[in-house]
C-alpha cells in the first residue's frame, strides 16, 4: 500500500488559506486498516471541507462501512483553488484527510451530490485523483467512481463521468456493493493493485443488478427529433427501471453514533440528530419531500439517547433536530422538554432548522432558545394564498401573522422569510404579495419593538425531477430579474424590510443541469476544462462560461430550461424511479394549475403516490393525530376541526393500504 502523502503536503500547507481543512484529526475520525479482502471507499464531498464535513449522509456511510470487517472508508473534500494549484504544480493527487492516502489507491471513490453546481467539482476531483474523467476511458484497475445524494435522481448530465449511481437511502446498499466488490477482488483481483481488476464492464454489469444501483453504461439512450425516444438496457439481465432504496425503519440505523467534531470552522457546527426522514406535506416544488417518502420517524426513545450520548461524546453545546419539518415529529414538545432539562446547567441549546409557519412552532422555539433570541426563519415560499395553493404550501396569512406575532411577543426581533419566485402561474400580484407580507410582519413587530427587522430572501424557482413541477418551464433570467426588480421597487422605502435575492444567472445554470440529459455531459466538461470550478461560490460562478459551453456543444438553453414539457415526453430520468407514479405526479401538476390542494397522507388514508405501495413499506409515525396548530400542509386546522379554506383534490384512495399511523412495528410489511 502506498505511503501517506503527508510529508509532502505539510510543506504546502503553510502557503494556503485555512490549512486545518486538510489535516483530518477530528474527534470521531478513523484510521482504518487497508489490505487484501478489504474494499476501500473514499467518501468525497465535491465542495470545501467547511461545507462537506457536516454532511450527515457521508458521515453515516463512513461509520457503517468502517464497522464492517470487509470495508475501510476515508473522506476527501475539494481542495480550495490555492491548494489545488500547488497540488497540480507538484503533481500530487487528491488525498484522504484521514490518513492522507492518494485518492487513486481506493477501490471506490464515492461522491455525495447535493447540488447540481458542484458537478464541475466532481470532474475536478476525479481528475485530481488521477482517474480518467470519462468512465469509458478507465482501465480495469482504476477506482470505481460512484455517486449518490439528491441530485442523482437525475444523474444523466453526469452519466458519462460516473461508473455507478446509488438512488435513495445508502445505509443498506453500501454493504451490498461492498460484498460484491470484495468477492470480485478475491476472484479476479488485479496483481498490480490488489483492486477489483479484469473486465471492468463485467463488474459494472454485476453492480447494475443490485437494487438501487444504476450503471449508466449499461443503458442505451435513443433520440428522435431532438427528444429522447427511449432509454433501454443493453442487456437482458439489467433492470429496465432502477428503483430507489428506502430504509423501512430509521430505528434500525441510529447513525451517526460518533458524529465528527471538526477542529476548525464549518457550517452547521453542532450535533445533528435526524428525527425523521421523508415528508408528505406535499409541497409541489420540493424535490426532497417527493423523493424521500414515506415518513419514517425515529423512535422518541432513540432520539433522546442519540441526543444525550451525542452531546457527551462530542462536547457540543448545541443540537439540531433535523428533518424536512421537525415540528411534525410526534411528541416533539416532550423530546425537547426532556433534552433541555437533561442538559441542566450545561448551556445546551436546541436548533430546529426547519420551522413550520405557525404559532405552535414558535412556542416550541421559545421553549428551547431560552438564552439567545436573535432571529427566527420561516418559509411561506409564496406571497399570495392563490400561489400557495398552486404549490400546495397551504399556509394561511393568519398562520404567518400568528407565528410572527408570537415570535415578537416572546422576545425575537428579527425574522427571516424565505420565498420562491418564478413559480408556475405566478402573476405580478403574487410576487408583490411577498412585499405585502413582509410589510405586515414589520407592522406587527412595531407594537413590540421600536425597530423590528424582517429579511426577505427570494430564490428563483428551479423545477426538479420527480416533482409535479418537472414539466414546468423555468422562468428566464430576464423574467426572474424583472420580478426581483418589482420587489426592490416596492420595498425601496420600507423601513425594517431588507430584501435579499439569489442570482438569477446561477438559478439558470442550476436549471440547465437539474433536468438535463446525457447530451449535457460535454457542456459540464467544457465548463470544467475552462476552469469553472466552485460554481456554487458567487466569486467563482461564471455565467458566460455556461452559456458559451451550451452554445459550443449545440445545446439550446431554452429547450432544456424554459420549455414546458408535455405529458407524452420521455423525460431523461424516466428509467429511474423514486417510487412515485408518473401519473400521480402528472395529476398533481394538473391539480396545481387548478389551485387544488392535496392533503398530507400521514394522517389520512393512502392516495397511492407509489412511494409506499410500490415497495411494500408504510409511514412510521408514532402519533395517530396531526400536530397541533396551524394549517400548514393540509389547509385545514386539523386539531380544531376548523373551516376548510381550500378545495382539496379528490383522489382515488388506494384500497389495500391501511392508514400508516401507529404502525411502527408493522413497518416493512407489505399491506
Amino acid at each position, binding site marked *: 500500500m502506498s505511503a501517506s502523502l503527508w510529508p509532502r503536503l505539510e*510543506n504546502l*500547507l503553510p502557503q494556503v488559506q485555512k490549512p486545518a481543512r*486538510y489535516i483530518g*484529526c477530528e474527534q470521531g475520525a478513523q484510521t482504518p486498516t487497508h489490505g487484501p479482502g478489504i474494499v476501500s471507499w473514499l467518501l468525497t464531498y465535491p465542495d470545501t471541507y467547511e461545507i462537506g464535513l457536516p454532511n450527515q449522509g457521508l458521515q453515516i456511510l463512513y461509520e457503517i462501512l468502517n464497522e464492517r470487517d470487509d470495508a475501510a472508508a476515508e473522506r476527501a473534500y475539494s481542495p480550495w483553488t490555492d491548494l489545488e494549484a500547488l497540488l497540480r504544480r507538484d503533481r500530487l493527487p487528491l488525498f484522504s484527510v484521514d490518513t492522507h492516502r492518494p485518492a487513486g489507491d481506493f477501490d471506490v471513490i464515492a461522491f455525495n451530490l447535493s447540488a447540481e453546481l458542484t458537478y464541475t467539482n466532481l470532474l475536478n476531483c476525479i481528475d485530481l485523483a488521477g482517474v480518467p474523467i470519462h468512465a469509458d476511458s478507465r482501465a480495469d484497475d482504476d477506482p470505481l467512481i460512484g455517486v449518490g445524494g439528491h441530485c442523482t435522481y437525475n444523474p444523466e448530465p453526469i452519466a458519462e463521468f460516473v461508473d455507478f449511481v446509488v438512488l435513495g437511502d445508502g445505509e443498506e446498499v453500501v454493504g451490498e456493493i461492498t460484498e460484491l466488490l470484495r468477492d470480485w477482488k478475491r476472484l479476479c483481483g488485479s496483481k498490480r493493485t490488489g483492486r477489483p481488476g479484469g473486465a471492468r464492464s463485467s463488474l459494472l454489469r454485476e453492480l447494475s443488478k443490485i437494487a438501487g444501483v444504476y450503471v449508466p453504461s449499461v443503458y442505451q439512450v435513443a433520440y428522435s427529433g431532438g427528444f429522447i425516444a427511449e432509454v433501454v438496457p443493453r442487456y437482458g439481465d439489467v433492470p429496465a427501471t432502477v428503483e430507489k432504496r428506502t430504509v423501512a425503519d430509521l430505528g434500525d440505523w441510529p447513525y451517526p453514533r460518533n458524529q465528527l467534531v471538526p*477542529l476548525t*470552522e464549518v457550517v452547521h457546527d453542532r450535533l445533528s440528530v435526524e428525527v425523521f426522514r421523508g415528508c408528505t406535506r406535499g409541497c409541489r416544488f420540493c424535490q426532497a419531500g417527493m423523493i424521500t417518502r414515506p415518513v419514517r420517524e425515529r423512535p422518541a426513545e432513540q432520539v433522546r439517547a442519540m441526543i444525550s450520548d451525542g452531546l457527551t461524546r462530542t*462536547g457540543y453545546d448545541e443540537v439540531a433536530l433535523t428533518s424536512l419539518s421537525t415540528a411534525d415529529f410526534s411528541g416533539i414538545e416532550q423530546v425537547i422538554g426532556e433534552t433541555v432539562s437533561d442538559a441542566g446547567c450545561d448551556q445546551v441549546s436546541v436548533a430546529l432548522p426547519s420551522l413550520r409557519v405557525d404559532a405552535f412552532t414558535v412556542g416550541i422555539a421559545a421553549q428551547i432558545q431560552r438564552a439567545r433570541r436573535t432571529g427566527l426563519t420561516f418559509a411561506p415560499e409564496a406571497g399570495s394564498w392563490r400561489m400557495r395553493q398552486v404549490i400546495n404550501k397551504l399556509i394561511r396569512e393568519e398562520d404567518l401573522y400568528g407565528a410572527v406575532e408570537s415570535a415578537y411577543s416572546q422576545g425575537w426581533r428579527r425574522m427571516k422569510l424565505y420565498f420562491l419566485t418564478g413559480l408556475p402561474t405566478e402573476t405580478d400580484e403574487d410576487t408583490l404579495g411577498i412585499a405585502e407580507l413582509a410589510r405586515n410582519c414589520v407592522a406587527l413587530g412595531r407594537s413590540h419593538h421600536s425597530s423590528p427587522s424582517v429579511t426577505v430572501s427570494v430564490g428563483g424557482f428551479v423545477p426538479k425531477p420527480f416533482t409535479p413541477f418537472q414539466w414546468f418551464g423555468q422562468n428566464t433570467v430576464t423574467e426572474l430579474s424583472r420580478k426581483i426588480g418589482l420587489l426592490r421597487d416596492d420595498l425601496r422605502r420600507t423601513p425594517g424590510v431588507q430584501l435579499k435575492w439569489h442570482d438569477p444567472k446561477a438559478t439558470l445554470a442550476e436549471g440547465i443541469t437539474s433536468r438535463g440529459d446525457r447530451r449535457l455531459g460535454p457542456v459540464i466538461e467544457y465548463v470544467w476544462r475552462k476552469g469553472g470550478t466552485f460554481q456554487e461560490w458567487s466569486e467563482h460562478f461564471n455565467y458566460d462560461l455556461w452559456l458559451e459551453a451550451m452554445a459550443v456543444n449545440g445545446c439550446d438553453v431554452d429547450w432544456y430550461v424554459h420549455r414546458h414539457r408535455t405529458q407524452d415526453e420521455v423525460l431523461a430520468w424516466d428509467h429511474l424511479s423514486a417510487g412515485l407514479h408518473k401519473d400521480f405526479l402528472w395529476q398533481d401538476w394538473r391539480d396545481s394549475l387548478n389551485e387544488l390542494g392535496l392533503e398530507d397522507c400521514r394522517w389520512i388514508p393512502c392516495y397511492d403516490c407509489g412511494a409506499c405501495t410500490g415497495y411494500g413499506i408504510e409511514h412510521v409515525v408514532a402519533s395517530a393525530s396531526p400536530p397541533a396548530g396551524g394549517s400548514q400542509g393540509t389547509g385545514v386546522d386539523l386539531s380544531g376541526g376548523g373551516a376548510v379554506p381550500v378545495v382539496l383534490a379528490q383522489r382515488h384512495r388506494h384500497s389495500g393500504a391501511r392508514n400508516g399511523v401507529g404502525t411502527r412495528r408493522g413497518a416493512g410489511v407489505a399491506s
Partner: protein
Amino acid sequence: MRVRICFTKHGKVRFTSHRDVARIFQRALRRAGLPVAYSQGFSPRPKIAFGLALSTGHSSDAEYLDIDLDPERINGIEMGDLPARLTNELPQGMAVTAAVAVDRQTASLQQAVTSCTWQIDVVDIDADTVASAVARALAAESLVATRERKGRKVVDDLRPGVLSLDVEGPIEAEQANGGGVRLIAELATQPRALRVSELLGALDPPLIEHRVLRLHQWTMNETDDRQRSSPLDAASSTPVGAT
C-alpha cells in the same frame, strides 16, 4: 477556581488556528466533564483565557491557558488527574503537560508573559550566510521594518525586541535544496509581540522559515527583573493536586 494549564501542539494539529484551539478546548473540557464557569448575560461563554496567539503552522512545547472552574460543581473531580483527563480528549499532537491552581488576582497571561524562546529552522540557505545575517542584525543599533497596523504603514524598530539570537547549527531538512540551519531566538512580547516572521523578514538577506517551535514563554519576576520564570511559577500558584 482558576486553573492554569500548560499544553503542547505538535504534528498535523499545528495547522489549526488560535481560534480553532479555543474551540478545541471548549469541547474537550465538556467531554472531560470539567465544570467550566460560564459568563453571565445574553450569550453565556465559557470562561477560558488564552495567552499569546501561536501562528497557524507553528508548533509549541509551551502554550498556556487559564480556565475558571465552577466551584459549585467541582466536587468529586480529582484535580491531580486533570492533565491526563484533558489530554485524553484532545486531538493527537496536543497534550496537557501541567496544571496549577492560580489566584484570581494573578496577572493574565497576556499581561504576564514578556518574552518567548523560539526554535526556528530556516532552509535553502547555508550556515555561513545565516551566521553573518544574524551577526549583522545583532551588531546593528536598529532593525527597521515596515508593518501594517490598522491599515496604516508603520515603521518599527525591531532590534529592542530581539533579546537573543543564536545559530545552533545545520539541520537536515527534507526537500530543502541548500540544507537548513537552526536558530534559537528569544523575542520580546511587550509592549507588543515580535513575530518570528517579522524578524526573519528584517534580516539581510531575509530568511525563509521552514519549521518554527515555541520552546518557552517567560514571565518577569516582579522583584528581580533579571529572573525570568514560567507562567506556571507565577507567585501565588500551587500545583493542582498538591493542596
